[in-house]
């Protein structure tokens, strides 16, 4: 036991002292936060100016008695912004002409657009989502107005009729508002983290074993310690590295978050900043700021982050499932590392390990939309996929009668990793001393039968 401790210590210290570990640990939270805000920033701060040619083919003179007008429908009615400039024409350019013109976009509005709301947008480079939806909104608005006129409906009447339904799910059991869907996303975040950590650290175990084998130090080591101690020391040592990294991330992120949250929360719910951020759609922004819907969405997210998620439970179970899943996969990775001589030979053995891992990831994505499905149930029990799938279910919470599912899954995972460790130890023991032999599955089966 004492020797295993020495091995754990070496595996841990040699990795934690590495520059790459320190950099990853410090940069991780900054990077995650940075990427998120960069995404937001890029989404908002699209500064491209679009010159749009609006080809309006609607008849200049409408025959309807109430809608007398002397120019085509859209003529000068699309609202310009600093980034959206409109020119109007009734003749479409050919694509070749358009290509050599000064316009970035050409929107062709057919004469029957009011009855068939469909239009073509010709582009040279695909515009941003935001520009596109702005165009849609503007054109829709004109069509809507036209329809209101045709049907003799007052704009105010129409606004009062137009309805947004906010569907709030209520759990029959305790009568509280349910945020399961949103919570599931948080669980999915944890699932991604587990998937990522198992892969990252599992491969490190494999590399470490291969390093010892190809360095030829392994025989020196196992003349002092048992192969099992060496394998477990490495697996546990690297697990501790993973946990250290995770805990540092949690601490650093919460420190970063508490430092910036005042500013962040203030800005998020402050209508002025929301308005400022969405420069392009001034009107929409003003609407959004006054729209209780948009505000409540922001509040929902904050409420979800701060109150809906049981963080201690989530992190506790994350650690359990990470460790369980990691021990299971890492020992299999260790067995692969022991069985092969070099990295290129690992491919054939990596496949059967990677597939369930990726599969667990896919099923957990599936659990987002259908959390009670039977596939989700089964894969949250099978130890190979449960660490990933179960995180999504844990985040959503179990009904009081469903706690057995969690307990069963945890027990199965423990049994799973014990089995995996046992299997891996048998392969490991033989593999580390086997050089220059091409290993097949048949060969591995033979190793399992060797006596120690």
């Amino acid at each position, binding site marked *: 036991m004492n020797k295993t401790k020495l091995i754990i210590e070496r595996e841990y210290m040699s990795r934690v002292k590495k520059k790459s570990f320190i950099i990853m640990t410090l940069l991780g939270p900054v990077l995650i936060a940075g990427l998120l805000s960069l995404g937001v920033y890029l989404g908002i701060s699209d500064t491209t100016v679009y010159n749009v040619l609006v080809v309006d083919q609607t008849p200049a003179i409408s025959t309807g008695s109430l809608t007398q007008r002397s120019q085509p429908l859209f003529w000068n009615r699309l609202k310009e912004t600093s980034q959206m400039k409109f020119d109007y024409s009734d003749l479409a350019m050919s694509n070749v002409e358009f290509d050599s013109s000064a316009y970035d976009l050409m929107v062709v509005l057919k004469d029957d657009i009011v009855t068939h709301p469909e239009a073509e947008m010709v582009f040279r480079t695909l515009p941003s989502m935001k520009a596109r939806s702005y165009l849609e909104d503007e054109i829709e608005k004109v069509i809507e107005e036209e329809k209101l006129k045709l049907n003799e409906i007052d704009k105010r009447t129409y606004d009062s009729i137009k309805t947004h339904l906010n569907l709030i799910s209520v759990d029959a059991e305790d009568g509280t508002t349910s945020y399961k869907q949103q919570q599931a996303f948080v669980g999915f975040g944890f699932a991604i983290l587990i998937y990522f950590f198992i892969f990252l650290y599992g491969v490190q175990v494999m590399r470490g074993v291969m390093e010892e084998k190809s*360095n*030829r*130090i392994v025989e020196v080591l196992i003349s002092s310690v048992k192969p099992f101690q060496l394998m477990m020391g490495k697996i546990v040592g690297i697990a501790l590295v993973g946990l250290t990294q995770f805990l540092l991330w949690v601490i650093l992120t919460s420190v970063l978050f508490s430092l910036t949250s005042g500013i962040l929360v203030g800005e998020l719910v402050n209508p002025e900043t929301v308005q400022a951020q969405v420069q392009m759609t001034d009107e929409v922004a003003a609407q959004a700021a006054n729209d209780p819907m948009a505000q409540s969405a922001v509040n929902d997210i904050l409420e979800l982050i701060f109150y809906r998620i049981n963080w201690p439970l989530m992190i506790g179970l994350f650690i359990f499932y990470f460790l369980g899943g990691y021990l299971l996969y890492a020992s299999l990775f260790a067995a692969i590392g022991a069985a092969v001589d070099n990295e290129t030979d690992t491919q054939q053995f990596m496949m059967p390990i990677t597939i369930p891992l990726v599969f667990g990831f896919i099923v957990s994505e599936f659990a987002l939309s259908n959390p009670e499905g039977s596939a989700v149930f089964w894969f949250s029990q099978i130890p190979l996929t449960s660490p990933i799938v179960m995180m999504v279910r844990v985040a959503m919470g179990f009904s009081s009668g469903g706690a057995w599912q969690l307990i069963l899954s945890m027990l199965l995972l423990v049994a799973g990793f014990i089995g995996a460790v046992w299997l891996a130890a048998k392969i490991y023991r033989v593999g580390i001393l086997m050089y220059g032999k091409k290993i097949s599955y048949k060969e591995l089966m033979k190793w399992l039968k060797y006596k120690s």
Partner: protein
Amino acid sequence: MDILKVQRITKTYANHTALKSVSLSIPKGSIFGLLGPNGAGKTSLIRIINQITGPDKGKITFNGKALAPEHIEKIGYLPEERGLYKKMKVGEQALYLATLKGMSKKEAKAKLKEWFERFDILPWWDKKVEELSKGMAQKVQFITTVMHEPEFIILDEPFSGFDPINANLIKEEILRLAEAGTTIMLSTHNMSSVEEICTHIALINKSKKVLDGPVDKIRTEFKDGVYELVFQGDMLSFTNALWTNFELISNSKKGQDTVAKIRLLNDSTVNDLLKTVLPVVEVKSINEVIPSMNDIFIKVVEKKAKK
């Protein structure tokens, strides 16, 4: 007193037998050569002694007690496939290996500094292993094998890959350790590299022990009355003089001298030989031909094959 007794060890792998009922006794304080061609089963036996693998049949005793995990710390092992962590610092690594052998950090550090000094590699303590030359890395490996002052040291192919200077250094260290009372087992397929320092040997071929015992005894057993006679003079009269009681096995010219190998027949003695040849040629020297381990091995294996 034997430090290690191997009794009828058999080890079978899936498709071949590595050791077939092998027994050995290794006397305390001896330098024991485990000799045999590649693939004979030497490394399999060594791994069993080191408790890396277990035997299918048979047992091993260490100092009279059944071999057990607590004996690991009393054995030093330099495997044939040996290496170090490339990215780790030399001193740190040696310390790690020492603590794995049960030494305390403090004790290990003092011992290691001493050894590093002896081997002239103390300045490399804080360097990474990948910066060492091959010879220096081998010195480090040897040190990590012996630093915990084991009673029994096993060196598997100790001289393979060593340059002549280092090989000599290691040889001297082996002799020094043996003098201090350590029992040493050398395993090699290159018999000439160890026969001069071994006190005992065992020959292994095709997973069976074919011969073992003290080197002197084996040599005496295998010498068959052949003498090498160096002389100057007429070859024809020399051959005629030998007549019936001696057999001329071979002769060759070496400058002015003739080197002849002669077997004594019919209980004749060296004195008889000298009396016979002295009148016809001028004798420069006469030596008994001591068979090399290689010769003995070939002889034994051939004899077994004939049977």
